[in-house]
């Protein structure tokens, strides 16, 4: 997959919130690009503005200055070609697993005909074959998040935005889902912007890790992860993995703690 084509380009992005005590600067001078088919992780401590950045990319929040471009077009509002996965699965309890996955299809009136079988395939891909007609509350937290990922992919979005999708899960489930996400990504080569506060998770998954420092949110550095895929959990002990983790962590030791 050619990495030359630039899918997302963020230029001089700045976000200010008006509060009762005056404006608060959440993001300042954010510049980065994401190539077509690239997996980029943004890592930073809680409150560094990661989620604000993701909401701007999703078109849910306007930027104060600067812009975010998707294929050269400024993102000014919600778009139909972006898939979002939030920290919680955000499933609708009155819809079955299949109907939850088809939500984007229903909203964007893409027609259920071909998409039902596509949804079934995607559900098999994430290991949920046979659960199509169950309800979300019958599933474990990890399974629910897999439904959410499937829903994020069903309408063939140009990019998938993931906002700490595994942050609320236990460590074991999280590792399992990291492997699973890698497998899905290797199969589909989706462009992914993945936000996390876990350095290890970022290094494990991404081609490139953007390091975000807080107050105001700013991209301090980017670290390219050259470890070949498929990566296994055992690789977390490898020297190049540790080196990447160490480099990223060095940014936060001064400013605040961050989970490894």
């Amino acid at each position, binding site marked *: 997959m050619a990495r030359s084509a630039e899918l997302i380009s963020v230029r001089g992005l700045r976000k200010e919130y008006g509060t009762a005590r005056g404006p608060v600067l959440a993001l300042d001078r954010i510049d980065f690009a994401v190539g077509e088919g690239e997996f980029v992780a943004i890592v930073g401590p809680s409150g560094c503005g990661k989620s604000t950045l993701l909401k701007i990319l999703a078109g849910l929040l306007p930027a104060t200055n600067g812009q975010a471009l998707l294929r050269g077009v400024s993102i000014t509002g919600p778009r139909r070609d972006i898939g979002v996965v939030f920290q*919680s699965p955000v499933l609708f309890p009155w819809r079955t697993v299949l109907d939850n996955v088809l939500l984007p299809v229903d909203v964007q009136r893409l027609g259920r005909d071909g998409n039902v079988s596509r949804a079934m395939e995607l559900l098999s891909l994430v290991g949920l074959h046979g659960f199509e007609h169950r309800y979300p509350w019958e599933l474990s937290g990890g399974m629910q998040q897999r439904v959410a990922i499937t829903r994020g992919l069903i309408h063939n979005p140009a990019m998938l935005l993931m906002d700490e999708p595994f942050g609320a899960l236990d460590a074991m489930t999280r590792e399992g889902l990291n492997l699973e996400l890698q497998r899905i990504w290797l199969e589909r080569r989706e462009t992914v912007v993945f936000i996390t506060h876990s350095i290890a998770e970022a290094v494990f998954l991404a081609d490139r890790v953007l390091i975000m420092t807080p107050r105001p949110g700013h991209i301090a550095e980017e670290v390219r992860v050259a470890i070949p895929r498929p990566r296994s959990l055992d690789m977390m002990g490898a020297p190049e993995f540790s080196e990447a983790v160490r480099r990223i962590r060095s940014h936060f030791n001064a400013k605040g703690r961050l989970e490894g």
Partner: protein
Amino acid sequence: MNGLRKPALRVLLLVASLLFWEALVRALRVPAFILPAPSQVWAALYRGAVSGIYLQHLWITLAETLLGFVVGSVVAFVLGTALAMSRRTEYFLYPYIIMFQSMPKVALAPLVVVWFGLGLTSKVVSAALIAFFPLLVNTIVGLRSADEDRVDLMRSLAASELQIFRMLRLPSALPFLMAGLEVAMVFSLVGAIVAEFVGAEAGLGMLIQSRNFSMDVAGEFAVLFILAVLGLLLNAALVSVRKRVLFWDPSHKSVADGPSLKGGL
């Protein structure tokens, strides 16, 4: 064993308290126009059932209650939706609603009868007025209860406001709506009966009043019993609808543990 003994114990307790009531009334020679014995109530119930007088009045009260329930609920839902979705509507209408809400609606019944006459219409209006508030409040609270993350998800898919309403806000409001409807049903029966007290040509409320005047207290008890059963059946109907519609709601929000109901009579 335990599972079998409990219902049996319940029936036994009921029979025992009825027998105690009967014995007490007989032993103390309580006059029937103060407190009739269960046997006298039963006799009155039987007489009326055979003559068909209860059924005739029951249909009228049932029609008043159901029509009032439907009218009150529809108006409450439409107005509640307008208030929940538009801050401007809320700003202009809210003072009137608060004022109207803090007034005991049963106090309006005499006026309603003067305006709408002794027939069906005044009873329906009275029932609708009283049924209105529980559902209005629950509609507003329910439509605003949609989870913000879910709204964000819908927005991120470029959903229209109408789609967000139909696919998210309305289903999210259902537990509240059902709880409001359950209260509205009971309240509309109250509204119909109160209007019948004020002035009516037929209905179970009218029957209670006329029997009260003729000191037929046993007959009055019989009608009260029928009204209790009617209320129970109406509520059971809604509970069964709720169970079907809200199969997905883990909390099974009921009237008791559900959202606050600031309706009042």
